[in-house]
């Protein structure tokens, strides 16, 4: 069973996302929320790594946290799917375990 990794830190402040990317295996999913949504922006130093892994790893970002921070869909890197809290719940129930990169 694959894992849902959950990242709530900006990759520009903490290494949680980098560490998560280093441990996520093919088939896993990564959800970016809270300050983690800054990791979903396009044209950042981490965007290349996301597009390199996208496909093997599925990337999601929480829409309510994007909107709160003034980041619309247009700012999000390709290959990242926006979900709401209901979608977050679905991600939890459809993966074998969750791992929060606190």
């Amino acid at each position: 069973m694959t894992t849902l990794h959950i990242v709530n830190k900006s990759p520009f402040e903490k290494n949680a996302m980098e560490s998560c990317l280093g441990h996520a295996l093919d088939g896993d999913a990564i959800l970016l929320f809270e300050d983690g949504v800054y990791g979903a922006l396009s044209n950042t130093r981490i965007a290349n790594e996301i597009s390199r892994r996208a496909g093997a790893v599925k990337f999601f970002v929480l829409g309510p946290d994007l909107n709160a921070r003034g980041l619309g869909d247009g700012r999000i890197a390709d290959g990242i799917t926006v979900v709401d809290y209901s979608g977050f719940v679905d991600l939890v129930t459809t993966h074998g375990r969750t791992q929060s990169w606190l």
Partner: protein
Amino acid sequence: MSEAKKFLYVNRKAPYGTIYALESLEVVLIGAAFDQHVSLAFVDDGVFQIAKGQDTKSLGVKNFSPTYRALGDYGVTKFYVEKDSLDERGLSADDLMEITYEDENDGFAEKPSIIVVTKAEMAEVMRDQDVILSF
């Protein structure tokens, strides 16, 4: 109660600066009584939790590092430590406390609890779990 599950405690934070390492250890101690399969992972700054030579006297806070060494008596015998995290921090396994357990299936022989693994091996350990607790 259901069958035994695999619990992994993921430690990614250094001790003393925040309470997470200490209170995580308190969960491990209580959890040991539940007859589940328990492993600990030390990744990123979490490797500093089990560094040798901790002395908190001048801080007036409890030095809880000896507790890790006692976990073997509670059946907690798997400490996965990520080599990449040690390397990045200029540490080697020699800089960690000696943590051992007595193997009851092998004449109570004293064995090391610390298992140094690569990042790829750690990823496999993580995927092998039922419940991952991070603090």
